[in-house]
């Protein structure tokens, strides 16, 4: 396999992880808002922060994949 192929597979796996993680966060946030609509604003804010943290981790992997493509 070439570096580009492996890098692409790595990036795909990273996106898989990000999609799963952020999907779960979104799902639990929706359940929380459904249970207690008054807490909607707080839950939304926390959801966005948690999603950004998970996405940050996935983007680490994307950057490494980009390095693999460029080398």
């Amino acid at each position: 396999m070439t570096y580009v192929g492996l890098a692409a597979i790595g990036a795909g796996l990273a996106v898989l992880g990000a999609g799963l993680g952020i999907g779960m966060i979104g799902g639990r946030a929706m359940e929380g808002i459904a249970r207690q609509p008054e807490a909607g604003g707080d839950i939304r804010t926390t959801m966005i922060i948690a999603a950004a943290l998970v996405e940050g981790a996935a983007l680490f992997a994307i950057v490494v994949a980009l390095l693999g493509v460029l080398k």
Partner: protein
Amino acid sequence: MLFCSTLTFADKSYAQKTKTPLNHTQNYNKTAQPSLIAQNERIKVDKNSRGVNIKQTRTSNEPNATVNKAVKNNSKAHSSTHAADKGYGNNEHGGEEKFDIKGLIFGHIMDSHDFHLWGDLAVPLPCILYDKQNGLSVFMSSKFDHGHVDYKGYHYDHGALSRPDGLKYWDFSITKNVFAMLLVATLLSILFLSVAKAYRRREGQAPKGVQAFIEPLFMFIRDDIAKENIGEKKYEKFVPYLVAIFFFILGLNLFGLIPIFPGSANVTGNIAVTLVLALITAIVVNASGTKDYWGHLINMPGVPGFVKIVLTPIELLGALIIKPASLMIRLFANITAGHIIILSLVSLIFMFSSDANGVAGKSFGGGLVGSALAVPFVLFMNAIELFVSFLQAYIFTTLSALYIGQAVEEHEHH
């Protein structure tokens, strides 16, 4: 869609150089051409089985030919939109240029010393260079004539400056990114100074005009980001920094989405810029850390000794390196990924409109089809990138406030 189709034809510079060496007979008839041979050049002629010349390769006998070749070979890594095409899809070597998507994308993502507008047109920017031999040189990047001419020993190749003779130099030039940062900083200063003046003049009255636009954003940052994360007592000191960070990142993100002159610089997608922003946040967070904060990092109470040996390096690494690094990478990768996707979708139009050789702009029907496919996607991606600009500015600010809050937090001692 009309705009995209006209782009396909108007912007020949997006068609790229072929990677073959000087090859005048590529598209002409296959007999030997009476081409101009300089005194110091050698011609190597390849003949096919019928004895017809199929390829003439010129090599130069000049002493610095190897240097020029080395420089030209380095340019392969950097090939990007080359603004020096004289004429409609023809390069100066007489052949036609293929469409180089990687060069186009990297040319737009990376920094450069001029703003490329369209075709041959570019807005030059000042180059400010210092080296030990020649002292300070200040000149406009138009002196390089789009990379054809070396000036004062400096070579300019598709946005990257270099020095073939290897002398070390300091580069203080106003590049695209520097220009965009200065522009955004100036605009933000004008905006906020005028809003402050309006507040002073209209004391006690309802806000009007630009004030009414800025006030909700400012209140949002002050109340929902700073006060909530840092706490009632200490948040005021940090609000200026958080507001500055938010609007600076937002402004730079938005300017990066504009495709033409004042805006086409990919600043927040440059890892050096985000590195500095994250570094400043790290300095603010750690400099305002209380004794409790450092105590908890280095000497976490309530934890047995053998766990502390493992925990302390992890906590220190986390607070000083990993959290700022994650801020840096998050902003950089989000913005750069968005730009790459948009550029790839626009390049789809060029690829659809290219003929069998890969030269862009040859097929009108293909261009139409490409536009029909690409334009909705590009619009959609631009809308997402608009949302991402706001979101990433908000996330950077919120996480900075969170880290500051953790640093200045007062614990009740058990």
